């Protein structure tokens, strides 16, 4: 059984999103997805710029897989988790805490509200 915390929102591309308030949202890779990928060895971050829902924000690489992560809604990147550049495996060790990827900003909360709940995500990955 995967670790899927309540209170977060989820995407079909396996990102989790947390509402930080003030229009800021933190996102990362779900426990389930990091387990599928194996040890993450590199993270490529986006620039601090605007993205449209579905745009590729950056890339995560394990040894035999590479997965992009996507903008869950129209947003601007506010900051990235610099710590991952030296220690990308934090995504595996602490996918919902120290392994967060980026924080994005948006004025429109509807995108966030439309994402999957923990229960829906759990169903989506077949658990």
């Amino acid at each position, binding site marked *: 059984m995967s670790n899927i915390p309540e209170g977060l929102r989820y995407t079909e591309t396996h990102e989790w999103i947390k509402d930080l308030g003030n229009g800021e949202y933190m996102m990362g890779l779900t426990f389930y997805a990091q387990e599928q990928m*194996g*040890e993450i*060895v*590199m993270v490529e971050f986006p620039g601090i710029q605007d993205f449209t829902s579905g745009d590729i924000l950056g890339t995560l690489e394990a*040894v*035999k897989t590479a997965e992009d992560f996507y903008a869950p809604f129209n947003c601007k990147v506010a900051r990235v988790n610099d710590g991952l550049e030296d220690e990308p495996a934090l995504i595996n060790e602490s996918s919902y805490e120290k392994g967060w990827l980026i924080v994005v900003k948006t004025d429109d909360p509807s995108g966030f509200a439309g994402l999957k709940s923990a229960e829906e995500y759990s169903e989506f990955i077949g658990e």
Partner: protein
Amino acid sequence: MKTVFELSSPGRMGVSLPELDVPAAPDLPAGLSRGSEGKTGLPEATEGQVLRHYVNLSTMNHHVDKGMYPLGSCTMKYNPKLHENLARIRGLSGIHPLVPPALAAGSLELMYRLGEFLCEITGFEGVSLQPAAGAQGEFCGLMLIKSYHESRGEPNRNEILMPDSAHGTNPATATLADCIVVGVESNEFGLVDPDDLRRKVGPNTAAFMLTNPNTLGLFESRIEELTSIVHEAGGLNYMDGANMNALLGIAKPGEMGFDVCHLNLHKTFSTPHGGGGPGSGPVACIEELAAFLPDPAVILEDDGGYKLCRKQNSFGRLLAFHANTGVLYKAYAYIRTLGAAGLREVSEIALINANYLKAKLGDYFDNPFDNGPCMHEFVLSGDRQAEQGVKTLDIAKRLLDYGFHAPTVYFPLIVHEALMIEPTETESLEDLDSFIEAMISIAEEAEEKPYLVTDAPVNTPVLRLDEVKAVKDLCIVEPVRSVGQAPGEGENL
């Protein structure tokens, strides 16, 4: 093992060169020169040391002449020894590519005839021998297709349809050719779903790219329907010929509605793989595409001479010179040795060998697409073993302990824990039986003593290697160190 750099000691030489026999010219200006002290960092070792080093390294390789190499989609068949000698005949190996064609009449005649053979085998009219490998053949094919659409005033056609089971080079080539990949789903039989293809074709369809037999080793039985759907939508059909070893003298891509295909001479036509290359990926095509073939093409003139010429609307060149000519020599030799009956026999036995393995292994491993005969290869799933905690990767590694190379693993992507097995026609029944025994034995180990499989390999020159460390602590060149310095103390140049 030590690296060749660690054999180095100042003053040692591995060659003897004649003295300079002309007066020396003035030195290069200092700003352009590496300087008299400018080292290149090459090792200094004797001929004997160098030979011993590489001979010792060679013994750490598995290879076709040592044992079975059932690597799916790679067609690891026996490489005839004669062909190595033929390609080394001085008149063929010692000739500059830019000599006037009349001075290279032998090479040109061979190339011309090889082109004709490949057209006959594939059922096409035009051919280019230039592509250096399968992936470059794919690029060549897509460039032909794009040129064709542009010539018809349809430059918008930029979508390449391909099944989800496609080899990775197919989508990568589409990107290189500035096209967009559109995935087509496979049905429950592991074949392209014609309905999905029908949904995906449209006014932007440039081509449908298909490997046939497909990467599951299955012949696309509805091929006529598939190629017609694409033609009706104004697109063309490209066959990835990686699996042509199944079809020699049995069927021709040109008759199934394909418009262009590449061949892998280093698979089907027995030229050696060389540890990853050189290959050769000639492209054959219908008449309508031939005008766009890359430069140069070999032409037979009325006087019986051969020349190199540029096709009227050639899309360009792929290599500085004509082709991986030395590889062409070997493929020509193979076709001349076997003739029509011999080539047909290749495919017949390749099919029998593969179906025999499939039948014998069926009780021990899952086969998700076992709906009748396979062609020259088949794909098993290690799902049953995975339940015991033994993954396909472990099975692959355990096979190394038994003296076999592993099958292709985790491909195609549509099969869980995939094991893609291609025995080729050059394996004897006795060797196939030994492989079957090894596979059955591993299946039993997976149930009874799984650690034997998950700890594998143990009988190889090195144990399982840490690929995560290889990426994280990236070391892709030998650091420079002075004599007497311990490994790791040096710095990069």
